[in-house]
Each structure stands twice: as structure tokens, then as C-alpha cells.
């Protein structure tokens, strides 16, 4: 059976070339980068080399890159580290409703510590209007965090515009670029952000390596205290192979960026033909300004987890923002914040393509998907529309 991996937002396969770069650091070069002898200094050099690679992918300086273990850690570090560092200047933080849990739940932690958090609304495409940012700012505001792109709906946010507003008001601005780094060009100088989160496993690098860009001179309170690793800003024996892998993955992402974007963009556009062969399917997120390999839909009358299971049985791996497919059993807050009725959010299905997907993968999906939908709609009481036949009870869908 064909296996089509269409869940690149969950994680990417590790590029074999990245693995090869990591290999020596699992074997001979196992030293601790803090050690004085050659074994240690080689590990240290390898980390500094990787730091340069990540910096050059994002047009920043090596000294501005702090390695972490995940995108979630980078986000916690940024939000809490800056809010705490600046708490004497104010205790108001602004985040958008498009944020990943690692931002939203860090914001909730800050609320418990006495901070006030504003959650910015978004439009039906999931876009944050820079004007709402401007309006949300108070004298107490010290930090704004808006995701570069949502992994659920692929919408790319107007980061540069928001960064301009923040800078003018002398407010620190962080963007969660976990879904974008390595997948679309990131030019930090041009974006004008103060902090930016990334994760290697989102661009064919290893799990266990993330990074936070912190603009030169910006003070941040550590999340993990201890030794002097990462210049005293993030303690713990460095995961040398993973960091090396992140560097190599960054290098490859930089050099192959255009061809990868072209490839996944073309396949994604082909995938969008799903809408022609199945009725009552809606694209979620922005129609144009979105991640190139990202296709997300809501399918009426059926539920996402059931779609995932039937697709998986055919070797197609995708994701959903439905309540039943999330292990927390809550419908995606991102979909709801875009104004989607929760019954429709239940029909969420997300395909995210990668460099190793082929035209045949897409053709296979296009052939199988309508059957999956048909089968589930036959089982659904709403198979013929939002209203239960025989009951006449109208389903609570506010379109």
C-alpha cells in the first residue's frame, strides 16, 4: 500500500543528510562542550558552527541564537523570560488568538502571576489586523507575541507591520516562527522582531532541538538555570548531535528553499482540487497568503477523527483540529476564533506537504478522499444537510 505522509506540521522526517552530520556526535565525538580537552572543544566548535548556520538561515547573528530543546521551550522562554525581565515597566502582554498552546498556556501562567493578557481577535481567514494591536496597547504593555504562521490553517500574519507598531511604542515583539522557519524565507532584520522561536523538526531536522533568536542586547530571564551553557541563558548539557542536526537542516533549508517551496506549492495547488470533487468542503485560513505546502479544510456533516482513521487505513496520514481528534477533546481554539461554528470545526482536516511528497501521492489522495467522505456522510445523520431528517431538529450552525 502507498504511504502518503501529509502531516508535516506534526513533525518532519529527518533528512538523511542531516542524520549523517549528526552521526559522529553519537560516536567518537561524544565530549561535553564545556570540557577543556579536544573532545570537548570539538563539540563546542560543532555547536558554534550550527549556531552560525541557523543565524544565516534567518539573517541574524550567531550570538543572537540560543539553542533550546523544542519550539514549546522557545515560546515559554520568550514569553515568560521577557515578561519577567520587564515586569517593573509594566505587566500587560498581548498575544493573538492564533497562537500555539505553548504561547497561550504561558500567557495563562503569566495571568496567574498577576499579569494582564489581551488576546487579539482575528478575521475569518485568521489574520490579525495590526490596527487591533495598536488599540490593545496600553502604558503597561511590555510584550507582544503573534505567530508568524498558524500550523493549523497556514495563514501568514503581518509580522512586519506589527513589529513596526511595537518598535514605535518601545514594546518588545516576539513571533513564533516554528511553522515557518526553514519553510519560507525568514529575514529577521527585515521582519524587525526582537525574538523569534524555531524548531528543527519542522524543517527535516531532529526532534530535541529548537532555538530562540534574541536581539542583541535584549535582557531575558532564563527559563532553565544552571551552568554557563548558551552564555548563561539556557543551562543543561547541550544535546550536541541534535544541535548539529539543526544547523545542517538550516543549511539545507536555506540552499533548497526555493525548489522546496515551488514543489510543495505546486502539489498543494493540485491537492486543492479536492474541492472540485467533493461538495461542501471549505478551505480554512487565508486563500493566498499561506504556507506553501499547507491545505486545510472543513468538511461539512462529518467529523475529523473519523476521516483521519479511514485515511490512515489507506496509508494517508493527515491531521485535524476537531475536538475528538485532539487528545484534550477540545475543538481547535484557532478555528473557533476565526468564527467557524464548532459543528463545522468538527469536520476539520489538515494536509501539510513536504519535499518528499510526489505527484502520485496527491493523485492517490484525490482518488481516495471522495470515497472516505462519501462513506462517512452515509453514516452521518446530516448526510443531506445540516438538519436531522425525521426529527426536523435544526443543527446549531451559525454561518
Amino acid at each position: 500500500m502507498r504511504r502518503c505522509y501529509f502531516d508535516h506540521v506534526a513533525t518532519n522526517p529527518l533528512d538523511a543528510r542531516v542524520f549523517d552530520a549528526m552521526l559522529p556526535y553519537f560516536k567518537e565525538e561524544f565530549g561535553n562542550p564545556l570540557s577543556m580537552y579536544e573532545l570537548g572543544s570539538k563539540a563546542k566548535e560543532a555547536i558554534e558552527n550550527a549556531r552560525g548556520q541557523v543565524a544565516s538561515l534567518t539573517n541574524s547573528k550567531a550570538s543572537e541564537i540560543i539553542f533550546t530543546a523544542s519550539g514549546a521551550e522557545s515560546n515559554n522562554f520568550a514569553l515568560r523570560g521577557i515578561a519577567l525581565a520587564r515586569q517593573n515597566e509594566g505587566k500587560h502582554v498581548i498575544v493573538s488568538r492564533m497562537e500555539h498552546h505553548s504561547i497561550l498556556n504561558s500567557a495563562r501562567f503569566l495571568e496567574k502571576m498577576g499579569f494582564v493578557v489581551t488576546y487579539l481577535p482575528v478575521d475569518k481567514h485568521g489574520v490579525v489586523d495590526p490596527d487591533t494591536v495598536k488599540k490593545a496597547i496600553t502604558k503597561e504593555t511590555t510584550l507582544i507575541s503573534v505567530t508568524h504562521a498558524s500550523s493549523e490553517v497556514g495563514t501568514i500574519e503581518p509580522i512586519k507591520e506589527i513589529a513596526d507598531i511595537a518598535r514605535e511604542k518601545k514594546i518588545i515583539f516576539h513571533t513564533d516562527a516554528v511553522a515557518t522557519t526553514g519553510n519560507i524565507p525568514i529575514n529577521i532584520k527585515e521582519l524587525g522582531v526582537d525574538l523569534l522561536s524555531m524548531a528543527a523538526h519542522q524543517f527535516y531536522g531532529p526532534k530535541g532541538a529548537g532555538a530562540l533568536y534574541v536581539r542583541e542586547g535584549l535582557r531575558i530571564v532564563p527559563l532553565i538555570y544552571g551552568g554557563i551553557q548558551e552564555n548563561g541563558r539556557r543551562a543543561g548539557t547541550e544535546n550536541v548531535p541534535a544541535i548539529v542536526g539543526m544547523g545542517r537542516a538550516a543549511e539545507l533549508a536555506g540552499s533548497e528553499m526555493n525548489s522546496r517551496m515551488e514543489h510543495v506549492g505546486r502539489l498543494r495547488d493540485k491537492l486543492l482540487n479536492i474541492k472540485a470533487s467533493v461538495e461542501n468542503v471549505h478551505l480554512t485560513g487565508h486563500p493566498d497568503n499561506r504556507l506553501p505546502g499547507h491545505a486545510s479544510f472543513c468538511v461539512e456533516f462529518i467529523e475529523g477523527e473519523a476521516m483521519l482513521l479511514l485515511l490512515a487505513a489507506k496509508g494517508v496520514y493527515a491531521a485535524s483540529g476537531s475536538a475528538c481528534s485532539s487528545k484534550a477533546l477540545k475543538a481547535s481554539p484557532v478555528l473557533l476564533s476565526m468564527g467557524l461554528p464548532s459543528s463545522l470545526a468538527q469536520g476539520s482536516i489538515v494536509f501539510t506537504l513536504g519535499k518528499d511528497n510526489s505527484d502520485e501521492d496527491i493523485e492517490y489522495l484525490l482518488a481516495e478522499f471522495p470515497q472516505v467522505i462519501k462513506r462517512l456522510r452515509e453514516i452521518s445523520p446530516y448526510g443531506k444537510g445540516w438538519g436531522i431528517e425525521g426529527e426536523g431538529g435544526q443543527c446549531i450552525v451559525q454561518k
Partner: protein
Amino acid sequence: MYSAKVMDHFSNPRNVGDMPDADGVGTEGNPTCGDVMQIFIKVKDGRIVDIKFKTFGCGAAIAVSSMITEMAKGKTLDEALTISKESVANELEGLPPQKMHCSNLGADALKKAIEDYKSKNK
């Protein structure tokens, strides 16, 4: 995540369908927060002689619906009323704990269908 039995009933659900001339219909759940199950029964001499379902929901919800229709078919109404969430889950060789309550609406829908039949046949 799901037992083989759940996957079997999800992939090949039994007794799917409408029943325009049903003697009783029961609907449970709400599409805004999760699953909706609809059960249709045909009753003869106090016994469920035919049963169908329609379900909007996850794999567990569909498997539960399929399983409960199999369990209820041929039973007297009183026997059918003894079917519980737990007995359905047991027949399915277990459900993930978090799905135990939100997707396991079959027993409630069946109860409603029987009540519907009874209220129409008082």
C-alpha cells in the same frame, strides 16, 4: 489507540441507515461539542426486530453505535434497557478512557428510542 474490535465496527459498521417507518427514534448528543447519535427501532411483540443508526462523530462514536445496534437487535425492550455504556465498551474490548463518556452515547440514544416508541404506543 483503539481495540481491534472498535476498528472493526468503525470500519465495517453494522446496521447503518435510515428507517423512514421506524417505531421509535432516539437522538443524543450535539454537533457543536462532539458526537450525535441517532437510533431507529422497529418493535414487534415487545422485541426489537430491526434497528438502524446514523452517527456524526469520531471512530469511537461510530463503533459504539454499530455495536449497540448489534447488542440490542432481537432483545426485548426491557432487556435492551439494561444495556449500559459499560457493557457496550466491554463488548468493544475497551475504549480509551477519554472517549468513555463523550463518544459513548449509544445507550442513551437507544433509551430515547425506546421511550419514543413507548410514548407513541401508550
